[in-house]
């Protein structure tokens, strides 16, 4: 279902003229404007079938979150601790040859009505497990951060392909006009592996790219307002100048009828003015109650940053942003989930930084009724080895890892798949990265095989030529 040049459609539907109806159609279809009131049969929208979820918050644990130290309890590791059971030759993408089997340093306990085993590093998420559906046997195609991050975000191991958020923006368009439809909240300590390549629209039109929000700046969305040294672009001057630009562009277009690009520029100018009105309040947390701030962990230095970004994610979703991606951890050797050196030393602090905020986000979304149409996805680019590295660390392992889903359309409490005894490879119910992507699109009312864009001779899809919806976790 490659999208074609809108102009042809418009001229056909509008009988050669270029009326308001055609313009509205164009704006919706091309993602410049919000869709009209939803069809009652498809209350949450959708492209190919009625959607189960309308919006998405994706929590991305950058670096490769260890499954066997968090959600995937492996008693066999205790039994074989210290034994050399790993591959003899260094597999592709391991940074060193495999060490001996290493048990988890953290105790596991059962939680919730489902009795799910969760390690001691996630005490808060443990209280929310009944809301979640677990993919216990996720598998990816590489053990290297860059390609694996690309795979999880874009469905390809190579740069240049559109990410999930961009595909969703392309497929569904905006919910509202006055906020970006795809927002990325990177860790303020640094960008993830692949830098902004993970948020790229690839070959999709540039308007589908992730808007990278930096909460450390006065203006979190870049260039919504001019910088201080340019007073002629502030306040009344800004208002009057933008208004003049709109008038001028209308004069310009009036002399050049039937040009959809010119019409689109004028529409974009209108939306820009509205975005200027909405953006500041979205990022102003003063209206949140002390109880909310405290529940997320804004009042604790260990959790404050991720808490703030989870809270902003909720506010964005609440106001109509379609897709928000929140990153935990920058690239690099520290402050992330890439725990080569020491699981007992490196994992607890990064786990602590996200645990309470994530649990609070789920509870808050539920309390506000947002979980009914919001999908929350917790994932990472790959797992880690059951074999020790550098004494107590773990190396990269795409063989098996854990992802959980919660919220709209998700079968709460479900579990799908199992890793092998050591947690080295998937054993049953393998979920590929493409399967996860297909499932997310499915919940959004999109058939992943039909969301395509023709480029360089191929109808490209997020899921390449793969992917099956994991019906076991769909509620």
């Amino acid at each position: 279902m490659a999208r074609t040049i809108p102009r042809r459609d418009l001229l056909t539907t509008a009988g050669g003229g270029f009326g308001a109806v055609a313009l509205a159609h164009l704006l919706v279809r091309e993602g410049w404007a919000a869709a009209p009131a939803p069809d009652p049969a498809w209350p949450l929208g959708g492209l190919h079938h009625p959607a189960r979820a309308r919006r998405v918050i994706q929590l991305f644990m950058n670096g490769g979150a260890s499954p066997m130290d968090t959600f995937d309890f492996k008693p066999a590791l205790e039994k074989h601790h210290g034994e050399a059971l790993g591959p003899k030759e260094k597999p592709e993408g391991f940074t060193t040859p495999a060490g001996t089997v290493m048990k988890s340093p953290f105790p596991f306990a059962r939680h919730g009505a489902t009795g799910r085993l969760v390690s001691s590093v996630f005490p808060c998420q443990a209280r929310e497990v009944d809301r979640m559906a677990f993919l216990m046997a996720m598998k990816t195609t590489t053990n290297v951060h860059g390609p694996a991050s690309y795979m999880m975000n874009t469905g390809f191991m190579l740069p240049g392909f559109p990410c999930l958020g961009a595909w969703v923006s392309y497929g569904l368009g905006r919910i509202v006009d006055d906020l970006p439809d795809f927002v990325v909240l990177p860790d303020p300590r640094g960008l993830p592996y692949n830098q902004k390549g993970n948020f790229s629209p690839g070959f999709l039109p540039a308007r589908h790219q992730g808007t990278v929000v930096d909460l450390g700046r006065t203006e979190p969305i870049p260039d919504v307002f001019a910088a201080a040294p340019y007073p002629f672009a502030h306040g009344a001057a800004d208002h009057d100048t933008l208004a003049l630009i709109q008038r001028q562009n209308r004069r310009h277009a009036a002399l050049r009828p039937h040009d959809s690009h010119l019409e689109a520029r004028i529409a974009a100018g209108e939306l820009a003015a509205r975005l200027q009105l909405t953006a500041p309040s979205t990022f102003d947390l003063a209206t949140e109650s002390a109880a909310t701030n405290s529940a997320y962990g804004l009042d604790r230095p260990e959790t404050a940053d991720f808490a703030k970004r989870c809270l902003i994610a909720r506010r964005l979703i609440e106001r109509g942003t379609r897709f928000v991606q929140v990153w935990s951890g920058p690239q690099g050797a520290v402050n992330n989930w890439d725990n080569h050196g020491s699981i007992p030393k490196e994992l607890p602090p990064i786990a602590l930084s996200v645990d309470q905020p994530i649990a609070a986000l789920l509870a808050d979304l539920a309390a506000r009724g947002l979980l009914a149409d919001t999908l929350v996805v917790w994932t990472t680019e790959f797992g880690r080895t059951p074999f020790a590295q550098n004494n107590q660390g773990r190396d990269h392992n795409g063989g098996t890892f854990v992802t959980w889903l919660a919220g709209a359309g998700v079968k709460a409490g479900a579990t799908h798949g199992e890793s092998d005894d050591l947690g080295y490879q998937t054993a049953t119910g393998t979920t590929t990265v493409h399967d996860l992507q297909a499932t997310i699109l499915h919940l959004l009312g999109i058939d992943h095989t039909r969301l395509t864009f023709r480029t360089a001779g191929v109808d490209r899809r997020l899921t390449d030529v793969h992917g099956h919806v994991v019906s076991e976790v769909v509620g």
Partner: protein
Amino acid sequence: MRGAPGHRSRRLAVALVMSAAGSLVAAGPASAGPPASPDDIAFFRAQVEPLLARRCLACHSHATERMESGLALDWKSGWEQGGDRGSAIRPGDPDGSLLVAAVRHADPDLRMPAEPLPAAEVATLVEWVRRGAPDPRVAAPTAGDWWSLRPLERPPLPTNAARANPLDAFLDARLAEAGITPAAEADRRTFIRRVTFDLHGLPPTPEAVEAFVADTGSDAHERLVDALLAAPRLGERFARHWFDCIHFADSHGFEHDVFRPHAWPYRDWVIDAFNADLPWATFVRAQLAADCFFPDDGPVQAALGFLGAGTYDHSAAVTAPRSFENLDRDDLVTQTMGALASTTANCARCHAHKFDPVTQDDYYALQAVFAGIGKGDIEWDADPAVAALRRKWRRIADLAATAPAALLALPEAALVADWEATGQGRAVWHPLALATFTSAFATELTRLDDGSILARGTPPEREVVTLTAAGPLAPITALRLDLLTDDSLPHQGPGRAPNGNLHLSEFDVRVFPAGAAPRAAPLARASADFEQSGWTIAHAIDGDPATAWGIHPEEGSPHHAVFVPAAPIVLAAGDTLTIALRQVHGGAHLIGRFRLSATGGDPDAAVALSAAAAAALAVPAADRTPDQAAALAAAVLGPRARGELARLPAPQKLYAAAATAVNERGTVRIDPPREIHVLHRGDIDQPRAVVGPGALSAVTWLPSRFDLSSGAPESARRAALADWLTAPTHPLTWRSIANRVWQWHFGRGLCDTPDDFGRMGGLPSHPELLDWLACEIRDTGSLKSLHRLICTSRAYRRAAHAPPEALAIDPDARLLGWMPRHRLDAESFHDAVLLTAGRLDDTRGGPAIPHFTQRPGAQLTPILDYDAFDLDSPGAGRRAIYRVVWRGIPDPLFDALDFPDLGLLAPTRGSSSSALQALVLANNRFVLHNARALATRAAAEPGTPADRIAWMVRRAWLRPPSAPEAADLTALADRHGLEAVARALFNADDFLFID
């Protein structure tokens, strides 16, 4: 197509055999049935044919040369005859048709394709069969039967050609057929703005506009185009078009998005190539294999940057090298075949191309072309004379080390006789009187009667021995270090390692003048009588303690080395000479016994000769054996070559790909080239047959597997591919570039999928015109002549206003009855803002300009801050083509204006609009800063406020303001000043769009 007849007759024979078999098995071939209705044909074309192409043809078609189970589904006869199981379809009877059974996965033995089709697709096929399987594909398919693979022949001009530019002849014929009356000619103001942006990526100056408007000459347009084509800004414009096609950028991309400081010489080469109108074949050949085709032409080596244009996954290269190399070669195949031949050969990595005649063998043959190169910096000399000298002396140095007898055949052999005739090699050495000799590790050092120094006791792991001599001393032009044997040393030494070896890491000379700061005495060169393989004497003076001079396996005999300082060392009274013998390799690789001496004679005479050379020197020249002559030649010419090389200017570095290249991993050598296997399903763990270098077998009249001799260098593979691509009969190369040039001028190619001329690509709107242009480039080689033809055509001069009745017929302007309107691309916007603000810096070439500040990141990728960039810094006003393009951390301004993600080839720029883009254009610091600059200039203009505003509008929009515009802008200026006016001018569509 040449080569096709044989193929067709083979197919016919197969069809006959199968027909006979079919009549025995089933009740005769399926009936053709009644003629299909137009509706049924339309249904087939719209729904069934694409589905078959997508799901079935990879394994059941002529194009892929695969007909599994004997079944072809790419024409009607194919499924009528059927495969091993008989007719695939019984028209009108879905339940009785094998094809339907297969896609339903009902029979466990007949499930096709392996991955079940979506229910909707099964339903489509059922409906098609139910309708009687209408199928208009009655012509026999052949592998090459596709427009872009047909031989290229120059089509005759349409009959109206006599009076027109040949392009107009083709275009007008089609317009007339379609009943379109084209738009009138654009006015001169519009034309000069259009053509200047098009050819230079910049607007004309207001003065140039007025001059052109006032030019009454009938050939004014032609003169303007010629002047623009002759200006160097042309190359700066078209180079960026090319870089998009080959995803050229200044950083790696991926996890470790590292800067490539030496990418820019390629950028400059491409600019120069376009300006010089380098013939297209030469352009192609230089980029793929300049090292093979033009080894003696230094500057052309920069073309090899093409091979390093793409991404580089440093992390995978280290930890997952097999998959890395596979994907890195894949990227080069994709780039080369996409950019140069508009072919998606890379689609055949995991299976035969589903739509085009590219086999997996073809694909891996293309990988084999690049199997001997890896990305990194290579060295290259800009000055051809320097390049020649470097090659000559490198060869001599190599021969001296590896094949000295070959030196005697060189002209430089005469230098040996000269050297000997001037008494060289016979320096007179005087022992240096040492004031002190100390060990950093308290080793016992004893001075023996002959003045040598012997180490005793338990050797330490490492050692630094420091020697001093007190001034005054006669000037020293060379120092000699003798390593002597002694019975107390292992294997008589001269080293202290268990085998008698030693490693001299650095020979470090300093002068301590009385009452002044010490200074190093740099060494110009060194020589030794013997060098351990890989542990040469040069390592003792390279400043790198990790490298050293060694003598293995020649332990047990004395050795010596000579060190020549860059300038004679002079010691006055009170001065001290200090020499440190650093031996830090470890493992007790230490000097056991040594003596130091000095000479003040001609430093060229001071050479350490090998034992053989020294023996040869003792024999009169006429009596020497060839071995002796060779040994002496090596001893003389080896150090001479190293000295000559050291004196040459530093070579230019270039980021490219080569058998040996230097990158973050050090020196990476892929020699000999990797053996390339066909990979089953593209899986590196499922290698199948080995393939040699080659290209597409679908071009049947060119050899698709390269016939290279076994001793051929790696570069011969790339050269063979370049020869294949630039063959005058190549069906793709010339069409590809002709189509790109057209796209660069009109915004859209005659074929609108510039990287894909295959079955999934678009069909050319004017196939004869495309072929005519392709022949023109093939026959002239000249892009400039094509630019000129296009820019002087009547089609190019038309107004951008679509006549309403024409719009109804051709809404997309494929027939070019009017000029398509365009938004400025990111570079043109950037450069036009600078020019309009009076801040454009026209400096050409050189290292790329960062538009950001940077600080170290957590790992190799730095943190870039575009907002902190000093917009007044030197170079900030240079054209965008000279900026650093950081793949993974794009400039927000360029990002907003659809600058592509250069992770992949980006042959077509997007042109989107969004609220965020509007805000970036309105508020980006670059725009505001230059708005201020324009306002400042305007404020200095004479006249009334209205005059100043009119001056600004003429600069920005290249026309005077209308009365309402002037009133509007004046009111804005009254309230908020000229800066606000300048900001508005840059944000108006009058600035942003080109008619």
